[in-house]
């Protein structure tokens, strides 16, 4: 239910995969590549994953969400590869009988995915520089 994908995400198919007549609520989160971060203009983003462990850790996160919240279905996919502005980097979808559980579980999943799943992001800036996020070892020059 947690996948690493080198292909563009297909939110229609992903949401269809969660269809369940017991579900009254479907909450989705999509992470889009945005045009700036920490005040720098972004040109594009590269994502890299340690896929087997990412899918295992992501699956554990989905299991945790199912255990903590009254969820019917939960799925998530993270892209790898070189993404342009506006492309979808990650998609999370949760269904539940009632909306509170769907919102809480969706938020839980994306928070945990960002904190724990072995995926890495390299920002390409408009000025041609690049940086692996969270991997700086000294402060940037002012």
């Amino acid at each position, binding site marked *: 239910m947690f996948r690493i994908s080198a292909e563009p995400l297909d939110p229609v198919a992903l949401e269809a995969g969660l269809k369940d007549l017991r579900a009254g609520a479907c909450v989705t989160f999509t*992470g889009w590549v945005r045009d700036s971060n920490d005040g720098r203009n972004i040109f594009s983003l590269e*994502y*890299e*994953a*340690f896929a*087997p*462990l990412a899918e*295992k*850790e992501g699956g554990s996160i989905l299991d945790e969400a199912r255990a903590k919240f009254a969820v019917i279905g939960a799925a998530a996919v*993270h892209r790898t590869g070189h993404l342009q502005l506006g492309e979808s*980097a*990650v998609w999370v979808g949760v269904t539940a009988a009632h909306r509170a559980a769907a919102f809480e579980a969706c938020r839980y999943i*994306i928070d945990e*995915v*960002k*904190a*724990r*799943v*072995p*995926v*890495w*992001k*390299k920002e390409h800036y408009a000025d041609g520089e690049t940086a*692996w*996020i*969270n*991997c700086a*070892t000294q402060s940037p020059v002012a």
Partner: protein
Amino acid sequence: MTKTLAVQYFAILREQRGLSSENLVTVTATPTALYEELRTRHAFTLPANRVRAAINGEFAPSDAELRDGDTVVFIPPVAGG
């Protein structure tokens, strides 16, 4: 206590090492010790305390015992989403 390990590199470590994987023959006992050895050799910028280890596809403690034939992956700070 010589053992052969497969080491895989991702992201900033892959770039700084200049390759994605290699086989190493070493006497090093733990992931942390192995990382320090590789860090010195390849000038990795990340200190050991910011790098996690996985052994054979599972997260592992930094003081786990490395065994002959293990596949070791060093995991820089993650940044998904």
